[in-house]
């Protein structure tokens, strides 16, 4: 009989799948990532506790149901009872779940309170979400004054399938956020354009970054290592491509990193008096372009119109300097074009403007000088 064969096929398929899944689940990442903070550990135990409870209830309820499915069948000539009410039972299965909820609420409340307590930090870092990268500013504590942006470093070739994918595919950045182990770090989150969310699964820390507002969260990493997460609030086209990487190091290593970082920052600061040649400025601009512009306007300069217009052959890009300068520095309202005046230095802005005006088919032959950018900042 065809119906029987449907049932047999289904049972067979379920059996095979069940076995396959249990094998897979052991071999794969299938549970919360190992906890590195106290909060994450608490979240794990809370999760396990609730799962246990839920499993017991599941077995209970569906035990009754499947027994009924098995035993109280018409084709076994089971006569239907006609009762349809029982006040005692109905009261019981209202009150018992209520009691269970109160029992869960107690540990859950403790974790929520701990999670919200960002007071007395050893280190305060502001993280700013941009479309599509993160900016870090070390505000208070050792390393105060350090500031950098952190961009996905996975090459485009890997994403588009022209090169084999590396082990940290989509979870690697050019500059990692570095913090000392065992210290309480308060993260202030904000954003420059749309809402993003800063998340490190191993820390149990996730906080939306909201433009125009500062929110906070905190973590105290108990193990050194590199921890990776991703933006978790849809923030436009490249939402899937703005990872977060935190390197937790010992106190000594941290001090060393702070020293190196400060030196590097001083060294990297461009000499304002430097006289640039067109080629120097173009070469510098190409790097700036690759880090900030390429996601939308593409390496080819062709963009992905109409949302992200082409730069190659654009009249605007090659017109009088003031027009492209205005767009790059102040952004374009109601589009994903950000105001880069706040994100890039005079030299970087001048370089990237020069690059776009003298690359692909664009041949203005002139350059935008850092001094001109400085003047335009006012």
């Amino acid at each position, binding site marked *: 009989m*065809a119906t029987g064969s*449907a049932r047999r096929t*289904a049972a067979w398929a379920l059996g095979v799948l069940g076995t396959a*899944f249990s094998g897979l689940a052991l071999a*794969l*990442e*299938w549970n*919360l*990532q190992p906890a590195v903070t106290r909060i994450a550990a608490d*979240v794990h135990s*809370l*999760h396990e506790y*609730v799962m246990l409870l*839920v499993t017991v209830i599941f077995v209970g*309820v*569906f035990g*009754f*149901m499947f027994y*009924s*499915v098995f035993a*109280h069948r*018409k*084709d076994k000539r*089971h006569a*239907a009872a*006609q009762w*349809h*009410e*029982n006040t005692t039972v*109905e009261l019981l*299965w*209202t009150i018992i779940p209520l009691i269970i*909820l109160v029992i*869960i*609420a107690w540990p859950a409340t403790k974790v929520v309170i701990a*999670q*919200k307590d960002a007071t007395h930090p050893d280190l305060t870092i502001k993280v700013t979400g941009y479309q599509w990268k993160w900016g870090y500013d070390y505000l208070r504590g050792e390393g105060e004054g350090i500031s950098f942006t952190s961009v996905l470093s996975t090459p485009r070739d890997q*994403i*588009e*399938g022209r090169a084999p994918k590396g*082990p*940290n595919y*989509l979870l690697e950045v050019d500059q990692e956020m570095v913090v000392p182990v065992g210290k309480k770090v308060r993260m202030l989150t904000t954003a420059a*354009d749309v*809402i993003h969310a800063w998340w490190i699964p191993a820390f149990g*820390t*996730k*906080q*939306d970054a*909201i*433009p*125009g*507002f500062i929110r906070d969260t905190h973590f105290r990493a108990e193990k050194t290592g590199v921890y990776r997460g*991703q933006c978790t609030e*849809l923030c*436009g*086209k490249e939402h*899937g*491509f703005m990872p977060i990487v935190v390197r937790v190091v010992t106190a000594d290593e941290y001090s060393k990193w702070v020293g190196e970082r400060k030196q590097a920052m001083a060294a990297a600061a461009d000499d304002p008096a430097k006289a640039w040649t067109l080629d120097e400025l173009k070469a510098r601009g190409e790097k700036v372009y690759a880090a900030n512009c390429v996601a939308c306007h593409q390496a080819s300069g062709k963009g992905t119109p109409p*949302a992200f217009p082409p730069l190659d052959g654009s009249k605007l890009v090659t017109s009088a300097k003031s027009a492209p300068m205005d767009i790059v520095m102040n952004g374009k309202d109601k589009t994903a074009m950000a105001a880069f005046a706040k994100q890039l230095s005079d030299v970087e802005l001048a370089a990237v403007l020069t690059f776009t005006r003298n690359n692909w088919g664009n041949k203005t032959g002139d350059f935008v000088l850092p001094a001109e950018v400085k003047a335009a900042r006012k």
Partner: protein
Amino acid sequence: MSAVLDTHGHAGHGDHGHPPSGIMRWITTTNHKDIGTLYLWFSFAMFLVGGAMAMVIRLELFSPGLQWVNPDFFNQMTTMHGLIMVFGAIMPAFVGFANWQIPMMIGAPDMAFARMNNWSFWILPFAAALLVISFFTPGGAPGVGWTLYAPLTVQMGIGMDLTIFAVHLLGMSSIMGSINIITTILNLRAPGMTLMRMPLFCWTWLITAYLLVAAMPVLAGAVTMTLTDRHFGTTFFNAAGGGDPVLYQHIFWFFGHPEVYIIALPAFGVISQVIPAFSRKPLFGYASMVYATSAIAILSFIVWAHHMYTVGMPVQGQLFFMYATTLIAVPTGVKVFNWVATMWKGSLSFETPMLFAVGFLFLFTLGGFTGLVLSLAAVDIQLHDTYYVVAHFHYVMAIGAVFAGYAGVYFWLPKWTGRMYNETLGKWHFWLSAIFVNITFFVQHFAGLAGMPRRIPDYPLMFETWNKISSLGAFGFGLAQLLFLYIIVSAIRSGEKAPERPWEGADSLEWTHLPTPVPHHSFHTPPVLK
């Protein structure tokens, strides 16, 4: 139930002159059965469109890397899949059931406002057209997620405006439909059909209609504020002008959480008709079902911010919304226990409608459990906006509601059309759907726990296996729904003639007081119930 049989029911036709034939019959119809049919076919068409978008999503996610679509188009797919499924497929499907069933179940000749009923439906194709046209505007459809969060919406092209107008139209349609349902139930019940004697399906719809009237204007307000922020210089959601992006989320979810129950409650109603019928035993705890449904509806208005645990609310806010949310488990639990108690010591048989009802029970309960996990603010912060949430809401409202819809179609099709569907194929449809849907969504829990964010077109390598399995499941589920189309079309065209009482356990008025198939006009004079 003792009642005097109404034999005028099938005198039917003719009384109202000759209805226009061909396409004009459907455009001008004010008959609740015709309009119900329109709603159901429309929603199934939208289900296929939204489903095709899901296939694109799962195709892109089959492997890491960008293979088939660019990230921008991927975002448009997730946005439109959500909007079309929620507003185009699931909601209209249950309004279709309401149109067909409520007048027959309460012994009314038609809906209270027959002409408005026509309009409620015919607004929908225009709304759907706006959504589809948005793909062909400069910049394409909005890629902001079905929640349409500000301020990303400000960056979108004209497609966003079309979507906003579509939401306005859908809201108008829902509100008119709801007013109609409330009025019909409160005023057109047959003598003796007291509120507490109504089939539970009517109760769930009465409560749902109130939810719709309360919630849809809130959504209309939210999208209108988005529209003025985009074009008229307001800054409701822009901090630079004194606004707040989080305000949008509060307004949206004040609509959005009741919306979940707007989808779920009518599904509960269908299940509460199907399970007793195939258990040959009255619904257990009818009164407590009514109270539980009401309690869920009231609670649904005070839990909205559990969708926003990561925006940075004060600790008191986190705790209030956590406690209020966990409370929903109590009335929801009562419903599940009542359904199981209805089956207990019944005389069960498992025709296709019952299979889908039990399937619903399984999916909905599983989704309810993950809902309990997510209600705990501390755990939710870890899982928010990951695939765990995607799995959760697909179980609880998307697929749960779809299974309830299938249960309803297989259950009432013989009554509506006078023809039986092919039982063997129906069972195949159930088993294929049930297996593939769990393959699709169960593994997404694992991906979410391990840390995969939602709404990303590409993902780190560790999530590859789960995504492959999920995609294969999705393709299977998608194909299985074409089988449903075949089953229904062949049943309507050439199905066996249905017996006068296709299901001996079904005992509401449409089964006991009307012939099979039901005449075009039923209950000219109300049945008298004692």
